[in-house]
């Protein structure tokens, strides 16, 4: 998710590129009436300042007026279909098969695969979510109680890779050398139930934890804004009746027990 990466730079003390010093921008004590001019000046001078502007896109010293600049926000970057960004082709195929059982197609609504859930997960793993960016990843690592939360030293991306390899091994060992993709729907469901209940043991990793990640990320892919590659044509939203990124319901608050008539919109508008 590129938006988050950019934001992290803006947010994250210690994420600063060397040379992206505050000295020019916000020398404490050097009061200035608004940082905007200075920032624009820097932007047009050298390539070096581009690094600078990306890492401290906001003023460090604010005085006199609000530091307003046009288009200073960080909209999300749209994800496009295409080759896998993180998965290998085999991993991608396995994920497509998995998400299509978690959310199977039916006559009204496509399943997880056609809704783009696998593409969504792939792009998430290739981005800041996959690399656990911004999370506290320092040791020592120890298994905690369930109440203490996830304590793994592995990033989500690494965990998916490890779990998918172990799942492939499990399926081939259990179902006469077939991969998960080659199983019948019933067999696939049996494997997934086994993961959910902790009955299918994956080598070197917890099948149950993998299941929880996968289910959560698949749902995200089905219901998140289409800009992230899932929820294609807003199928998830249409299925439940969520109008998406609309912003004004003043006329509708007091229309009780009536179905809201307008179709969903996403951040990038509507497909047609």
């Amino acid at each position: 998710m590129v938006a988050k990466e950019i934001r992290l730079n803006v947010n994250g003390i210690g994420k600063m590129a060397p040379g992206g010093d505050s000295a020019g921008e916000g020398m404490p004590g050097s009061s200035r009436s608004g940082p905007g001019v200075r920032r624009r000046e820097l932007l047009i001078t050298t390539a070096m300042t581009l690094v600078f502007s990306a890492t401290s896109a906001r003023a460090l010293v604010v005085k006199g007026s609000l530091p307003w600049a046009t288009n200073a926000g960080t909209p999300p970057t749209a994800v496009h279909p295409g080759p896998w960004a993180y998965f290998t082709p085999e991993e991608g195929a396995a994920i497509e098969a998995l998400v299509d059982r978690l959310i199977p197609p039916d006559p009204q609504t496509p399943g997880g695969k056609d809704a783009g859930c696998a593409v969504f997960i792939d792009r998430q793993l290739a981005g800041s979510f996959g690399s656990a960016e911004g999370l506290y990843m320092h040791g020592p690592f120890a298994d905690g109680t369930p109440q203490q939360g996830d304590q793994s030293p592995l990033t989500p991306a690494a965990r998916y890779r490890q779990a998918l390899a172990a799942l492939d091994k499990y399926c081939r060992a259990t179902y006469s050398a077939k991969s998960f993709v080659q199983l019948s729907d019933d067999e696939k469901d049996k494997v997934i139930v086994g993961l959910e209940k902790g009955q299918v043991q994956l080598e070197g990793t917890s099948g149950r934890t993998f299941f929880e990640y996968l289910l959560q990320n698949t749902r995200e892919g089905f219901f998140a804004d289409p800009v992230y590659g899932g929820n294609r044509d807003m199928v998830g939203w249409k299925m439940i009746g969520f109008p998406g990124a609309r912003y004004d319901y003043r006329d509708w608050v007091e229309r009780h027990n009536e179905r809201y008539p307008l179709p969903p919109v996403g951040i990038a508008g509507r497909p047609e």
Partner: protein
Amino acid sequence: MTRKLPATDVVIVGLGWTGSILAHELTGAGLNVVAIERGPWRDTATDFPPAYAQDELRYRIRHDLFLRPEQLTMTFRNNANQTALPIRSWGSFMPPNGVGGGGVHWNAETWRFLPSDFELRTHLVGRYGEKFLPEDMTIQDWGITYDDLEPHYDKFEYLCGTSGKAGNIKGRIEAGGNPFEGARSREYPTPPQKQPYGPTLFAQAAQEMGYKPFPQPSGNLSQAYTNPLGVTIGPCTYCGFCEWFGCGNYSKASPQTTILPALIRRPNFEARTQCEVSKINLDKSGKRATGVTYVDTSGNEWEQPADLVLLCAFQLFNVHLLLHSGIGKPYDPRAGEGVIGRNYSYQVTSSVDAFFDDKIFNPFIASGSIGMCIDEFNGDNFDHGPHGFVGGGYMGAVQTNGRPIQTARTPQATPRWGAEWKKAVAKSYLSSYEAVTHGGCYSYRDVYLDLDPTYTDRFGRKLMRLTFDFHENELKMSTYLTDRLAEVVQKMGPRQLEKHPRRGHYDVTVYQTTHTCGGAIMGVEPKTSALNRYLQSWDVPNLFVMGATAFPQNPGYNPTDTVGALAYWAADAIVNHYLKSPGPLVQI
């Protein structure tokens, strides 16, 4: 090398709600104020434009607006026999980061506490006797009364333009408002928000049962409003992307929409963003703060000397900074002595899910604070004698969102995936409803904050360690409240109803609220409190500590109306008393 900067009158740590309020009041009194803020500058129009502010994945699921745990986190354990481990990603609460603080992404549910909440121990012991309270419960009186605070509540609500209906104006009970609230000097600045179907049905059911439902007071404004600082807020459009999100409509009360546009014009104010205060500095005597040390984005360290230090860094970080700076005696749970880290408290919430066949609730038509509530089971509004617990909470139908990743719900018996799940989600989304209780959390001897022996932050400082679990008293309360709530929901006529009282151990991964409280509480004597009734440190009189840090325990409400009122109360004491003769405002 630390570079020393020219001195200023006042340095403020954190530019959230309380930092903005104090900066405004003290620059108004003519002082030079420098506010140092860890996160980035944030503006309504540029950071949360309605073009892309409605992004559940980015803000709700991936926590875009919050502090990165990598930058700073804490460790957690349920009890002192366990080893605390780092909170590696946020779950139960969401620490703020950036100008505006929690005011950017709060719901804006704007509640006053009950008069009895401020004199809690005296009140409960008077009514039920000392023995009624659990032995290890460490609840205390605040050292101020509701009447002391009333003018300051009023000021904060008129700053925000809070939408609501008064239940008690100068002792006169008003129809349609909360009859249990303390007397207010006047009506809310703006009328209540409009109510969608669910809250309306809930209120009808509650009324039929003899309760007195009223609209939840809301900082999501029902109409345009210009506050006393001349800043205008717009009407809320019920977008349903409020809690955890910034409002792109200028409709939610936040420092951005109420104070900063006025504050920033003051020539004697300066904000430094993306600068994290690492320590409050003391002189040799240890009784006087000389200023703060902070680190900028490139790792340079600066010392900002100041005559007055105002700690406005949010409850958790206030305590962390006090512990680190060696101010006040750290709490020792074995001896029951010391004050920094003592009386941590939180919140105990629960819910009732109801599934209907014949109703369309349009859950996405929502605001951070829209809803109809009842207060019969809050505080000591009901006789606890027969029940064997103390405390309570408000409850009601509060329609905050229909964002599907978070809220698409199914009856409990439904599988979590597959064709059946899909069918159930499609059927339930529009026609199910969740009602909630928002319960208090009292304080206990074995619940506290201190420094972790093992884990460190990026400066090499020890992380703060949270030792917390729910106690029997609160679990009983939750069961009782949830049962009462379920009775009302049952009257709304669902096909199926599911109760979710709080049970078992506190779990740091499950979101409840960001209403963490205590750790450096206010009170009447230094032995059992870190701050006096003006939120002034007993140990270091030129240091004042704002926020829910000061709450001796948490009543059954959201904190910020009280946090804001206390900030105005402290500002008043600083301007009208402290500045005239700097020193302790309470003699002991």
